[in-house]
């Protein structure tokens, strides 16, 4: 990856972060912490990895994305808006009565949302079903799921993990946004789920580890997933909850609460500063 490409990714990730903060602030509720931790991953998926077309959201040969950790809807919406699926101003209506953007992803009403999710543990099963359908059709479509580490406490994740290996769904790649936190505390103190890499390996998956905020690592991980045949890939991506907003980083309390006006302005100032700098870099 060239420095220019990396800066372009960084710039888009920061724009996505701005969209997250904008949406959650407008909603006065929602989940900024686990949205911000996935922002770099989402930027990479939608700018580099996935075949998709914002002008044709139902394009049959598009790669599919399933946000199994559906509460991180703000990062998906900010990513889709940034990609051009709908206007960024929609983010200002997030969670409002009558708005297109529901609290959790709704495939019926939001262009670019390939599966309705939100009840944890269910998205990976749906991703398996999509991957299986595409295999039956012989399309070559790939399916990308993003899971939470806390979500891996759900038994259904492991039902799906066993199924995906048994059916050799090598067109499926699940990334665990491993930010180490959930509503009631750190994952380790609530009900520890590590070692996730060894667990997925034991379920027969190809496992790759990366830093969720390092684009070289993300690129290598998705490349390894694409090259692996005969089994699905799990990317265990170590991330920082609340990444990119200083006062939200590694704070359990920012799992599911919205910033007030002052906090919103501070967050936007931090992000905007980085956007300005990156825009200058990219323009060089």
């Amino acid at each position, binding site marked *: 990856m060239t420095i220019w490409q990396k800066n372009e990714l960084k710039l888009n990730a920061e724009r996505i972060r701005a969209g997250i903060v904008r949406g959650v602030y407008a909603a006065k509720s929602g989940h900024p912490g686990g949205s911000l931790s996935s922002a770099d991953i989402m930027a990479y998926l939608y700018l580099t990895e996935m075949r998709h077309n914002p002008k044709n959201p139902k394009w049959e040969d598009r790669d599919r994305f399933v946000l199994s950790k559906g509460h991180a809807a703000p990062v998906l919406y900010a990513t889709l808006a940034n990609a051009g699926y709908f206007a960024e101003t929609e983010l200002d209506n997030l969670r409002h009565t009558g708005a297109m953007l529901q609290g959790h992803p709704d495939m019926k009403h939001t262009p670019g949302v*390939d599966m309705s999710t939100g009840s944890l543990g269910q998205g990976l099963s749906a991703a398996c*079903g999509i991957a299986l*359908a595409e295999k039956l059709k012989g399309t070559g479509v790939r399916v990308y799921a993003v899971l939470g580490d806390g979500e891996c406490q759900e038994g*259904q994740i492991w*039902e*799906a993990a*066993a199924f995906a290996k048994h059916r050799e769904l090598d067109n499926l790649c699940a990334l665990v946004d491993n930010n180490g936190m959930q509503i009631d505390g750190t994952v380790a103190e609530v009900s520890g789920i590590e070692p996730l890499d060894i667990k997925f390996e034991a379920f027969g998956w190809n496992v790759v580890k990366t830093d969720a905020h390092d684009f070289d690592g993300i690129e290598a991980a998705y490349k390894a997933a694409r090259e692996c045949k005969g089994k699905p890939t799990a990317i265990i991506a170590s991330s920082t909850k609340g990444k990119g907003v200083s006062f939200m980083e590694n704070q359990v309390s920012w799992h599911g609460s919205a910033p007030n006006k002052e906090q919103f302005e501070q967050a936007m100032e931090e992000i905007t500063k980085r956007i300005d700098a990156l825009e200058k870099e990219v323009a060089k």
Partner: protein
Amino acid sequence: MADMQKKATRQSYGESLVALFPKYPNLVVLDADLAAATQTVMFKKAYPERFFDVGIAEGNLIGVAAGLAASGMIPFASTFAMFAAGRAFEQIRNSVGYPHLPVKIGATHAGISVGEDGATHQCNEDIALMRVIPGMTIINPADDTEAKQAVEAAILHNGPVYMRFGRLAAPIFNDPATYKFELGKGVLLKDGSDLTIIATGLMVWEAMTAAELLKNDGISARVINIHTIKPIDEDIILKAAADTRLIVTAEEHSIIGGLGEAVCGVVSAKNPVPVVRIGINDEYGISGPAVELLLKFGLSAANIAAKAKAAFDSKAR
């Protein structure tokens, strides 16, 4: 009547999946380690490349079916009613119902006629659970003829469908040469003027027999088969309410949340008449041969006739 042919609707289900696949190539069949019991094993043998056993994992069964449907397939997800509507309720509600995906749930071994396996496997709550899911279609066929046509109707319906099949062999009273299944339409099986018995599934033929018993007592009973419990045929129910002013419902399901309450919902809003609900009372089943259990729990022509007569007599007073 003694020589009437019998077949369990689960067998009709398995046979129709095999018969319909050539016509509907998007069809995929899933099971959760009960293929031999749900009869999807017939499909597995005929089209192994389109059959997927997910193992004992009903949440994943429904989730995988949702994903298949999201990618244009028509998945039939099969397990016992207990584990589909019960265990996987929330997966059906959120991954299938909310996005209105065309997943067809083939739930077998519904009701008390599961028999010897006992209360843990006798699902008398599935209709109630499925009725509360917005946009869910619920079909409870009464015999082989109806079940087979219902499977095709489910395929043609663009949305989620919950299909309820039984373990016990049921008399085949609909003539395949003349019967035409219409989704959402009740079937007037026998006209009558004193009261109406509205039945579903295994209880439909019992209701027909009950009408014969009532005739001996000089009571003219109308019999309606409600195979589609949701959306329910309001017209046929309201006409029965207007014409006969007394309704008896019969279902192999809890009297809470099932056909009886669905009928009550229709008449109480538009034309209140007494409704006597016959079904499993607010209790669990027990182990025993299916036929004995049906008698013990009052799911018989004799009990339907007795309850109907008592209600008619008190109406007449």
